[in-house]
């Protein structure tokens, strides 16, 4: 077990919790926490193992969907909280099956189906957890709703200013902490309750912190819970790393041309799209993480794609025949006309594509810049509380932007005049908005001289 992450987690949670004067109970539960998470086995090993993957992936949705239907606040809290601990349990068990920490969350990628078994186990856990919690945590029973709702539907952190990679590494540390213990299958109810109580308390803590952007650490803890959702989508892009375990997983696979090449090769080896079977193709392809369902659906598409052109060729050639017949005398001219019409269509399409690319890049950069500046604000706030650098910084910001605009205009790299105009307009606009934002922001918030940002931006422009 990794001591350091455990300690850091403890510290994080403990510091927050001690603020609320709840340190007594919690430090004991906290000490149990790393060990608890390490030793996994619930009281319903069969149930869980059997439906584990399904539950894992359906957890966020199920909890979310159970929310509106659940009348009792307390019951709601418990099912959500047990969901949380169940989540960790599942992740640890699934990672016992030789997967790395982050990838265990991949099976959460499909949110669509609701499980039948999950509420079942959830109920069982919740009754037990309710007993425990009633003993020790009455004060927190009162207002649990928003917290769990916040958590269980993967609400992104409201004041998160942390870069994504940071979040992910924290979560990985925590997950590793959870996962690395050998006895993942042997926990007891107390451990589960400890998890649950901690989950409650953390989530309870999150709520008052919602409106305070400066409470960084708690956000970190909260965010790390959100990461599975992000992670899942990211990891879905690399199909090879997805877990091959669950037979019932209808997880979405993102095909790539390379993968398709391998597929076609396998199909051809087996004698063509009609004769090839999904099983055979799967075996031949030897791609980790590919399930027979993926191959099946892909094969179906492949067959349709091959068959359809023949059908549609017949159809369209009829159409073409009729239109060609009309001008049969001017065969050559029609040919040229059609070709040129197609060319025109191509031009328009190319134009649209170009604009879409530009737009997308702009959108990415806008968000990136916004995030970057936010980060700078935060850093500045932390390092020099109370010092008002607004005035000095704004002039520096102006200078920086002015330099940037010049760089944009003078740079030969920017192709269209349209592009450079867009970029300059954007920079000017941002300059204005930065000033406005300075005014609107909390007066104590400082704007760092973005001396780092112009080189950053310039280097990007010069690409």
């Amino acid at each position: 077990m990794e001591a350091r992450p455990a300690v850091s987690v403890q510290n994080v949670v403990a510091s927050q919790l001690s603020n609320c004067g709840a340190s007594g109970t919690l430090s004991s539960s906290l000490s149990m926490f790393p060990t608890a998470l390490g030793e996994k086995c619930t009281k319903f090993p069969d149930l869980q193992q059997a439906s584990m993957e399904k539950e894992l992936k359906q957890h966020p949705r199920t909890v979310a969907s159970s929310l509106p239907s659940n009348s009792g606040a307390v019951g709601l809290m418990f099912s959500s909280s047990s969901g949380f601990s169940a989540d960790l349990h599942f992740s640890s068990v699934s990672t016992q099956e030789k997967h790395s920490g982050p990838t265990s969350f991949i099976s959460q990628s499909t949110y669509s189906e609701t499980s039948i078994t999950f509420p079942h186990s959830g109920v069982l856990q919740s009754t037990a957890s309710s007993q425990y919690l009633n003993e020790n945590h009455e004060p927190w029973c009162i207002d649990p709703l928003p917290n769990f709702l916040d958590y269980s539907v993967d609400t992104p952190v409201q004041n998160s200013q942390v870069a994504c990679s940071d979040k992910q590494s924290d979560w990985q540390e925590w997950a590793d902490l959870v996962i690395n213990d050998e006895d993942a299958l042997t926990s007891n109810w107390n451990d589960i309750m400890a998890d649950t109580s901690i989950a409650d308390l953390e989530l309870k803590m999150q709520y008052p912190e919602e409106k305070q952007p400066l409470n960084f650490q708690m956000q970190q803890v909260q965010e790390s819970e959100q990461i599975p959702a992000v992670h899942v989508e990211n990891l879905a892009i690399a199909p090879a790393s997805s877990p091959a375990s669950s037979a019932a997983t209808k997880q979405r696979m993102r095909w790539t041309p390379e993968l398709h090449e391998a597929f076609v090769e396998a199909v051809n080896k087996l004698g063509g799209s009609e004769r090839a079977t999904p099983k055979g193709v799967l075996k031949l392809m030897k791609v980790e993480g590919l399930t027979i369902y993926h191959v099946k659906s892909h094969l179906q598409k492949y067959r349709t794609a091959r068959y359809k052109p023949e059908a549609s060729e017949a159809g369209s050639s009829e159409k073409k025949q009729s239109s060609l017949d009309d001008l049969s005398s001017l065969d050559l001219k029609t040919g040229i006309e059609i070709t040129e019409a197609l060319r025109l269509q191509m031009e328009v399409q190319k134009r649209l594509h170009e604009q879409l690319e530009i737009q997308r890049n702009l959108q990415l950069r806008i968000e990136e810049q916004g995030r970057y500046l936010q980060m700078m604000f935060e850093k500045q706030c932390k390092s020099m509380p109370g010092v008002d650098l607004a005035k000095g910084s704004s002039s520096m910001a102006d200078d920086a932007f002015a330099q940037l605009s010049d760089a944009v205009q003078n740079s030969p790299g920017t192709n269209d005049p349209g592009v450079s105009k867009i970029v300059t307009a954007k920079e000017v606009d941002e300059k204005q908005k930065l000033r406005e934002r300075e005014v609107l922001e909390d007066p104590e918030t400082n704007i760092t001289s973005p001396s780092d940002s112009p080189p950053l931006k310039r280097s990007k422009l010069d690409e």
Partner: protein
Amino acid sequence: MKFGKRLKQQIQETLPGWGDKFLSYKELKKLVKLISSSCASRMMMNGSLEYGKAEAEFVYLLNNEIDKFNAFFMEQEEDFIIRHKELQQRIGRVIDTWGPNGSQPSEKDCKEELGKIRKDIVDFHGEMVLLINYSNINYTGLAKILKKYDKRTGGLLRSPYIQKVLQQPFFTTDLISKLVKECESTIDTVFPPSCDVISRQLVLGSEKIGAAGEGIFRNTVAALLTMQEIRKGSSTYGRFSLPPLSLPDQSDVIQSQLNSPIAIP
């Protein structure tokens, strides 16, 4: 409501089967209104409870939308990958049979086949571009609705949520873009070298423009115009807004296409 209208327009013009895959902008907007009106009064008292609940519901819906986009997008992407390969193979076959080493003498067949291939490639290219457009429009819609939400409810949902969106499969359109570019280079090989001026005049005068991929072409043009409109400038122009779109010279050609006298089925 401007974006809402544009979105509706785009959906109307869009390819069959895509219509319900777009963002349910109107519904989300209604929800935001509902949230802001119901929460506003209660914010002070016990509003925090309501607020958390409402936000959760909102996020839940957004997540559903994103799942919808992802599923549709990845499905289309898969189809495109398959079709791309098929087209390459077809072209290869044509070149083999009618190229310098070919044995088939029939030039008419060759021309026919080439014609079909050209049409198919151009349509294929168009569909891919429209998928990218789909992705972009939905992203824009999401960004707008999040901005509205933050504005109406005073929340801070937008920034972190949009970070999450940026990484979703439906927004990471790099692969499709690559396919589009490959398609473009393939097209250059399949099309005869162009004699611009004369042929353009022919085309603009001709009434048979409709024969070439009506739905896709029309949708593409509509998409371009929509994009232009959306970015024209808004009352709430902020640091996260895109600057206006500048479409160089071709715009009159595009306009004329859209206003062509051909009846659209």
